[in-house]
């Protein structure tokens, strides 16, 4: 008992000690084991807790409390078989408790044993002593719907349907009931009846895309092939438009079906009211129309016509009688700007957004779009400035504040960003602490990226790890629901919850943080291996600054920090005054101060540098790589990291598996070629240490699958095969005419075959000679970059290279940092002139 108390007093170590003492006294005491289990559970160490509980049960088989807790742990660990057994035991002990009946049914269902689940529910229902026919009770209603779901999942749809009809009078949640019915009818292909139900549902929510799709399907209108029965579709929507004039989707969806000759008219009908009213999100709703060239052209023509007419005669069209409001001009220009931004024509987009801003300089939305365009053009600094202007126009808008914080982080201004987001966090708590408390993941992901781009990978990794912790917390949070959902009978939704929790790491925040974290691990490992990574990390850029400049920088930084501290102090003293009168609040503050005392002993995250390489690798793979590959298999970046990390672990077959999967996703992705070359190189260098079976499997698969189409059939299966593959892959890369491929080639030469650096640079320069540079949306989205350039080269003009600011900056840094060679200055000058457009960085 003392142990239990201590654990609640935050004295973990002592608590363990005391409980162990207790156990030593009497190993057969179920109480001691139970308490030990509780302690482990409190620490979220579920595996240990389960062990303790099973010990406790050994000595007291019929203790309800222990069995119930035990079952909760089992479902948390997804041990459904054990869970079913335990639940059965509970029911036997207390057969008159409704909860245990339901619990057993759920357990059977989770264990994929639908028939038993159904049987339990049936028995339970018959045991309920004659309910009144129209018995209405929420819990009962949920139970019935749950039973219906089981019936539906068992596949006997007709039975499910009859059951559904029978329970209707006892069901409270009629929307779910109707949804189930429509779903079952659709599966039974009874479209006529389903259509009636969907109509009813659509009536209740006429902006639901799901119901609308259902309706379409019932009418045999296939979304995939809109050309087949266009007239039917249009008529169907005309009808709906009359019935639900206020529904937005009924207005916008038919545009996707409209044929070229009617498109302008239909679009014009749709656009005019929105442009008059001023709908900032108008472009977003129509973005999906941009998948056809002719549509893009027609949209542009229509908007330009509107704009000219509005400027000259204040009407959309000459035939109109009423004058349009001046805001219509504004929103039209605003739309056109987004149109060009979407087509990656940043210059024209900027021209048009300036038209909108000149028209109404007070509109924050327009400034936001300007920031967005600048971001896409790769100019993070101006983007952050523009977003800050938007923020200043409307200081109470949390959304803009948030966006602004994000843009600042992208521009490496972490202190300023903290200040900005701090305007909206709790006043009496530290900004970062509050953001952690609120599990504000986007902030930490952006902050992590920000540290990464400052080459502070340790701190960055620490930040990304926090995001992972949030996911662990989310998974832990379900624990309370195991008992709560059973008690409240929200069984259908409980099932959904469990499914969501199982795949929680699909979430884009987890994906983003994993990619960021893996990148940090890679850099940290390089650092530990003592690789000369100076060329790549740009740190020397800073060290090249003269001493006085460095001092200046430091002083500047200090000034900002001092200013922040001062402001914080002022704010805090203000808060103190406010709270003086309110004693309760001051108490709260005290407790806050108490928690703050637990200070982070490693704020920079440097401790990781002390760990062994193997441990770091294992941690990276277990925490980030494995879940990433499992839950986001369509993400090529994940497979690239897979190759990288498994190669480092010398698990060549796993790396090879990642390579195969990655190549299947995108054959000549520059990143995957880069990682593959590195893998082959490493394999070649360490070939003598490799197990013969491994190399045997590798060789035969390599020749059979030949992922990069290198024609390897005639080669002998030995070490030299790797070398041949490597060389062939490199020459393949040389012939690939995109900036990113050439850049990867350069990087590989510098990284693996350092001796060729001079030649590599000259080759790289040759690629650019006689070409024109064109900016592209931020080069961070590399894949998009090379695909766009590839398309451009194929179709129009191979004299243009697409390049983003990041890329240009990297190239210049590389050249600056590489050791002296004959033509170095000349090459540097060439690229400086080449990138003259990005004068900000030269």
């Amino acid at each position: 008992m003392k142990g239990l108390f201590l654990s609640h007093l935050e004295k973990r170590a002592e608590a363990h000690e005391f409980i162990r003492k207790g156990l030593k006294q009497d190993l057969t005491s179920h109480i001691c084991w139970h308490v030990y289990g509780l302690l482990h559970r409190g620490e979220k160490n579920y595996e240990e807790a389960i062990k303790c509980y099973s010990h406790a049960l050994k000595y007291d088989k019929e203790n309800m409390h222990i069995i119930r807790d035990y079952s909760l742990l089992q479902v948390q660990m997804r041990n459904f078989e054990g869970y079913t057994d335990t639940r059965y035991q509970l029911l036997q002990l207390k057969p008159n408790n409704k909860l245990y009946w339901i619990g057993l049914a759920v357990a059977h269902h989770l264990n994929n044993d639908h028939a038993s689940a159904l049987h339990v529910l049936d028995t339970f229902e018959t045991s309920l002593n004659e309910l009144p026919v129209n018995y209405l009770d929420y819990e009962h209603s949920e139970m019935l719907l749950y039973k219906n779901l089981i019936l539906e999942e068992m596949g006997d749809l007709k039975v499910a349907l009859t059951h559904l009809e029978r329970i209707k009078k006892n069901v409270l949640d009629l929307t779910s009931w109707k949804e189930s019915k429509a779903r079952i009818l659709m599966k039974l292909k009874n479209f006529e009846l389903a259509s009636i139900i969907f109509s009813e549902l659509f009536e209740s929510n006429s902006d639901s895309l799901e119901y609308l799709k259902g309706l379409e399907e019932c009418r045999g209108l296939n979304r995939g092939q809109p050309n087949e029965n266009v007239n039917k579709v249009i008529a169907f929507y005309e009808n709906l438009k009359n019935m639900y004039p206020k529904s937005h989707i009924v207005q916008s969806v038919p545009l996707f079906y409209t044929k070229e000759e009617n498109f302008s008219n239909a679009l014009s009908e749709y656009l005019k009211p929105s442009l008059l009213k001023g709908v900032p999100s108008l472009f977003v709703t129509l973005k999906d129309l941009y998948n056809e060239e002719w549509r893009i052209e027609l949209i542009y023509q229509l908007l330009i016509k509107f704009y000219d007419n509005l400027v000259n005669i204040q009407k959309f069209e000459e035939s109109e009688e009423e004058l349009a409001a001046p805001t219509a001009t504004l929103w039209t220009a605003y739309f056109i700007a987004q149109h060009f931004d979407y087509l990656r024509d940043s210059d024209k987009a900027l021209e048009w957004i300036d038209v909108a801003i000149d028209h109404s300089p007070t509109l924050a939305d327009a400034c936001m779009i300007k920031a967005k365009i600048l971001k896409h053009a790769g100019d993070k600094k101006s983007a952050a400035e523009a977003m800050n202007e938007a923020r200043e126009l409307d200081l109470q808008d949390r959304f803009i504040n948030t966006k602004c914080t994000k843009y600042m982080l992208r521009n490496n201004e972490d202190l300023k960003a903290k200040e900005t987001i701090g305007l909206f966090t709790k006043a009496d708590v530290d900004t970062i602490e509050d953001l952690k408390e609120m599990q504000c993941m986007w902030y930490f992901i952006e902050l992590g990226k920000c540290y990464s781009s400052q080459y502070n990978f340790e701190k960055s990794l620490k930040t990304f790890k926090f995001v992972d912790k949030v996911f662990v917390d989310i998974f832990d949070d379900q624990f309370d629901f195991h008992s709560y959902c059973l008690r409240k009978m929200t069984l259908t939704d409980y099932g959904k919850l469990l499914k969501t929790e199982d795949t929680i790491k699909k979430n884009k925040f987890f994906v983003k943080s994993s990619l960021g974290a893996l990148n940090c691990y890679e850099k940290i490992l390089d650092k530990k291996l003592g690789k000369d990574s100076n060329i790549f990390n740009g740190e020397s850029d800073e060290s090249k600054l003269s001493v006085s400049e460095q001092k200046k920088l430091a002083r500047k930084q200090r000034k900002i920090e001092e200013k922040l501290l001062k402001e914080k102090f002022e704010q805090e003293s203000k808060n103190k005054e406010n709270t003086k009168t309110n004693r309760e609040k001051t108490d709260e503050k005290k407790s806050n101060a108490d928690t703050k005392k637990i200070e982070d002993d490693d704020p920079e995250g440097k401790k990781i540098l002390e760990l062994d390489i193997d441990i770091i690798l294992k941690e990276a793979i277990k925490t980030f790589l494995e879940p990433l590959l499992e839950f986001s298999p369509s993400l090529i970046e994940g497979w690239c990291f897979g190759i990288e990390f498994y190669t480092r672990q010398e698990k060549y077959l796993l790396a090879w598996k990642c390579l195969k999967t990655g190549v299947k996703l995108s054959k000549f992705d520059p990143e995957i070629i880069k990682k593959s070359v590195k893998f082959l190189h490493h394999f070649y260098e360490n070939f003598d240490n490799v197990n013969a079976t491994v190399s045997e499997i590798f060789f035969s698969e390599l020749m059979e699958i030949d992922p990069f189409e290198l024609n390897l059939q005639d080669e002998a299966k030995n070490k030299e095969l790797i070398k041949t593959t490597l060389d062939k892959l490199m020459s393949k890369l040389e012939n690939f005419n995109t900036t990113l491929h050439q850049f990867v080639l350069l990087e590989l030469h510098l990284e693996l075959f350092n001796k060729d650096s001079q030649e590599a640079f000259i080759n790289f320069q040759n690629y650019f000679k006689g070409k024109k540079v064109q900016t592209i949306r931020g080069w961070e989205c590399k894949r998009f970059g090379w695909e766009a350039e590839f398309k451009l080269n194929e179709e129009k003009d191979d004299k243009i290279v697409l390049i983003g600011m990041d890329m240009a900056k990297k190239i210049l840094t590389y050249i600056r940092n590489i050791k002296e060679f004959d033509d170095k200055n000349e090459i540097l000058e060439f690229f400086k002139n080449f990138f003259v457009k990005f004068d900000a960085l030269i």
Partner: protein
Amino acid sequence: MTVEKKNFNLATSELTLNHAKQLQTINKVVLNSHYDLKFSKNACNDLTLLGFFNDITSGAITCKKLDEKSIEIETIAVLKNYQNFGLGSLLVKDLLKNLSTLKFQKAFVKISKLNNITIELFKKFEFAVDTECKENVERDEDFVYLVKDIVAEN
């Protein structure tokens, strides 16, 4: 001239600190004024109104308190594209309403002689040429001085 149509929605509201920058922007664009953000922040009171056209901030009027009973209208501005739709009139009208609730008795305004439109606007609201001259204040020849007695609202 007031244009009233279904898609023309005019409104005013008092300036808050959060939107001070909007006032600054309007005054800068329309009046080419050198007022800084501090001016706009100080103007956050019952005597400053922002005007909206279809929810877009497109006009503003600011005042200076002269004493307990009287104020001077310092600036009035409507963005170029939103002029001639009655927003200026609405700003003056709503301001006068506020002034009378706040028990002010006199409103002064000084307008450049070249600015006929604004002079007409105020005359429409029964501003009259101020004949009295305060002591020790020399009047600028290029400006017209208008004044209005405000009737208290019950």
